[in-house]
């Protein structure tokens, strides 16, 4: 039996720009239960253009690690229903996207919520849960 070399190889990483947006269904889920599964499912995802997904070898439903100097999260890939030109991915404004936002605001008091740069790569890990985001804070206390 040969050795499955593939499993030792790291999946390629791609640089990506992310901007945040609002989604009425996610806002509704937050109003009902911000610790519920619906809110988590609608928040822990990244919407990408078909072109970008093809370039990066991603399929809808794949899980990706999105990482930058501010933190790292695992989210599910969704294909944009729009005819997006690519180059920019979209995440709903949530505690997940906020892991990737820098605290630096140039002294202005407004972080760059809509201008995130990160690296993205395919992973097999489960998506980041709200409980794990809470655990991060509990450990600091």
């Amino acid at each position: 039996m040969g050795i499955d070399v593939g499993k030792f190889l790291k999946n390629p990483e791609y640089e990506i720009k992310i901007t945040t947006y609002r989604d009425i269904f996610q806002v509704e889920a937050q109003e009902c239960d911000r610790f519920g599964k619906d809110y988590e499912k609608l928040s822990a995802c990244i919407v990408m253009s078909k072109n970008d997904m093809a370039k990066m070898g991603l399929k809808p439903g794949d899980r990706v690690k999105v990482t930058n100097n501010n933190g790292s999260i695992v989210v599910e890939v969704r294909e944009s229903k729009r005819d997006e030109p690519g180059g920019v991915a979209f995440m709903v404004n949530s505690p997940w996207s906020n892991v990737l936002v820098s605290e630096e605001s140039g002294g202005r008091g407004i972080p760059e919520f809509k201008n995130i740069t990160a690296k993205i790569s395919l992973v097999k890990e489960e998506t980041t849960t709200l409980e794990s985001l809470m655990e991060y804070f509990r450990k600091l206390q």
Partner: protein
Amino acid sequence: MATCPGCALLCDDIEVIVENNRIKETKNACRRGAARIKGCINRLEPKIAQKPSDIESAVRKAAEILGNAKSPMLFGWSNSTCEAQVKGIQLAKKLGAIIDDTSSFCQGLLIEKLLQKKFRTCTLEEVRNKADVLVYWGSDAQDSEPRHLSRFSYFPRGESRQRGYEEDRIAIAIDVRESNTAKICKGHFYRIQPKGDREFILALIDALSGKVPAYEPKKILELASILKKAEYGVIFAGIGLTYSIKDDFDILVALADKIPNFHIMPMVGHYNMRGFNENLFKETGFVNRVKFDGKVVHDNRYSIVEALREKSIDALLVAGSDPLSSLPRSLVRHLASIRVICIDPCVTMTSKIATVTIPCAVSGVESGGTAVRMDGKIIELSKIIESDYPTDEELLSRLMGAL
């Protein structure tokens, strides 16, 4: 009819069916509003140091924390009634505390310019009755203020717009993504690159001045032509625009000067963010980021973001907001090392790490009061059902009494 506290449109045409003091059904509300009126499933409980307590003890503990703090901050307020906001400002004065709200990292700067009368604005009724050109700029109203287009801007008939969207109105979207609002603006969606708003405005000013714009000339000239012909135009400025142009609001004012029939309206999400801005402005001349230090001091250091980044506060009262959820994680780490008091109807991420939690009634559902709509109109909130929870205004009064 009830008023919806779901967003700053404060829709006052909501039918609520109540059975046995429980909300069974809402009619006319959007998804966001219906969910707010029906309420969260996790009601907050009074706790001290994560242990169950009662409201009176929690209020006393909160007063002790704030009274002993060297540099307390009072934050939140955009989901509080005007009456609670005024009490909050009084409490900040009494404590010599910093007070800030969510507009600090949202639309505060634009609302401050509006209250300083730096540009023309209008009411939502004027939009409905007169507006023929509607520009949604960095704003996806369909997802953030979902009844904006149907109640006020694009779809309704108005006094001078009897043919509504079919003939009398043009809706335009300028955005980084083709939002649900942009989908409605058929043929009038202008996609820009992230942070490309400034370049777009400059090109548009050139086109309106009779010059050939350097950036996408054909599209910009076409847009300039529509704007010039407008009888009554409105730019609905979303946070996509305000985040992008940062402090450079003069550029937006310069654009408005080129199109004298246009008005600018900041799009506000939380139901009473503008109320807080107006209440603090009346008291201090500023809309947020204020410290009562014998006198009124306004500084960016007193924004929630900079105060947390510089670790300059040692106690934080959060009223109707969830900074742990809505601010960068790298920033809110500091919350873990200070004492946090949380007043909210529901369990939030912030309440889960708070030293003291105090539950309150849901304003606009379990208690009445007033709020300020996104265009500045004062709206009465309804009390739809009875509740044993104290209002946020009452809790703040008790807190001041306990100091």
